């Protein structure tokens, strides 16, 4: 067991209700610093609700939650400074250029002009995008867009990055390159909290939680989950849990 201070996210008895509907039903879990944490579940299981709360965008009905050392009730603005967020649906501004998107996000996260310029150079070079820095986002292929969106989400070196279905619709090679970028980010000490519908991607996580009807019904390493559910792959685990 890791020491408690190594838990970058600590959730105890999280409940979120919308009227009479319970979207999150007493969730208790933690995320360790530097790990890739897979947050899986069927559509409507309550994943997005929980992510919104962890990002400081919505208040829980009850429960104790600490994110990056801050309380989600009282220190939401501090949390927002320490996290990055990216999703398939909302990532970059289509009518701004590659370079403008980088500067916009970096500015929002409060980076100074000098820092932005030097890091932008470095980023474009690393991604091999220098030659298209002045192209509009809507003109570049989806695979590139998603990699750029991820880089932008971690540009301010957050403690945690939340990725909500980051690889939807992306080609199989770009999808794998994306996961290699995720691994690289963890080596820089960034914790990754990720949702996906691709079950092979669940295998790339250090630990995986699976939500069913607002509850977490399973949480462990992929290897342990496969053993527990007598399955050879995570797809099987997921199907067995959802059909129980």
């Amino acid at each position, binding site marked *: 067991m890791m020491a408690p201070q190594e838990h970058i996210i600590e959730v105890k008895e999280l409940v979120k209700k919308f009227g009479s509907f319970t979207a999150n039903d007493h969730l208790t879990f933690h995320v360790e610093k530097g790990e890739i944490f897979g947050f899986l*579940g069927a559509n409507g299981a309550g994943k997005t609700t929980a992510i919104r709360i962890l990002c400081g965008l919505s208040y829980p009905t009850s429960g104790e939650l600490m994110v990056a050392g801050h309380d989600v009730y009282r220190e939401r603005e501090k949390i927002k400074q320490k996290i990055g967020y990216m999703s398939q649906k909302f990532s970059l501004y289509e009518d701004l250029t590659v370079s403008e998107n980088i500067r916009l996000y970096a500015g929002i996260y409060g980076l100074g002009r000098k820092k932005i310029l030097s890091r932008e150079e470095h980023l474009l070079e690393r*991604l*091999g995008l220098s030659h298209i820095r002045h192209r509009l986002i809507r003109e570049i292929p*989806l695979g590139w867009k998603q990699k750029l969106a991820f880089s932008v989400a971690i540009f301010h070196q957050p403690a945690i990055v939340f990725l909500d279905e980051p690889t939807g619709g992306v*080609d199989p090679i770009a999808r794998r390159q994306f996961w290699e970028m995720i691994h690289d980010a963890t080596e820089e000490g960034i914790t990754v909290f990720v949702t996906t*519908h691709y079950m092979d991607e669940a295998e*790339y996580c250090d630990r995986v939680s699976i939500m069913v009807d607002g509850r977490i019904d399973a949480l462990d390493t992929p290897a342990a989950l496969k053993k527990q559910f007598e399955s050879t792959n995570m797809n099987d685990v997921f199907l067995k849990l959802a*059909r129980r």
Partner: protein
Amino acid sequence: MPLIVDHIDKYYKEVRALHQVDFQVQDGELFGLIGPDGAGKSTLFRVMASLVVPDRGRCTMQGYDVVRDYREVRKIIGYMPGRFSLYMDLSVEENLAFYARVFGTTVDEHYDLVREVYEQIAPFKKRLAGKLSGGMKQKLALSCALIHRPGILILDEPTTGVDAVSRMEFWSMLQKIKAQGITIVVSTPYMDEAELCDRVAMIQNGKLLEVIDPASPREEANLQLFSLSSSRGVYTYLEKIRGMEGCRHAWLFGDRLHVTLESGADAERMREVMESWNDPSLKLQPIKPSIEDLFMALMEQEGKEDTVTGNRI
């Protein structure tokens, strides 16, 4: 022949959406179109549905030309677009009745065909379509596309963004519709779904890479493909493998690495080198390529010819 796509080109200004796309679908076949976003799948569906006119080439549905005979084409197809074309301010049953009327039929006439799908949402038949969950919208849209008993059902990414359980249910519904003698053309970005089709066309950058039969042996791929596994996890070996002589490429594949060797490379030599890594659980075994392996191999070949961007990312 239910569907003939004959060397179709389609441009949007200078962007080439489809390039010399050419294939045929047999009677009663469940035919898949697989490829990532932006590959040209939706454009192709719009051509088939007579909504977009190709710049070159021809497309016929049951012998009717999609440009010249578009009125006939629209009667014989059932089309489910990527964004379900439901009327959000009509109820579930009103949507179904509306689609039936538009096609000059009634809900009762072909109810047997949609029963299986529709009965799953029937308990909510008074609810507005706009208030349904994604999975229920998908089922209603499928019912509406089927209610006039089309000869050909064309489904543009019906499972995108849908969880693994709902995706499996949807595919078992498709198998049942197919059993009723309806030809189905369906697109998906999920490679695992391709295994459920009779034949699959792989599309990337507006080009048809290949049409394959998922059930047939894949020697034609001529891939020297191996799977690397280890109880210690494989990610740490990724760069090491890529740096080895004889390795063409290596990619993460669930809890394994899939390693493609250069032609003529010797796997035994690689195993010898791996012994020095001191991991007795490390295994390099030959495997047959999955659809996803094939797709990636074809992408790599295409990528070499593709100079639009200079370097692949």
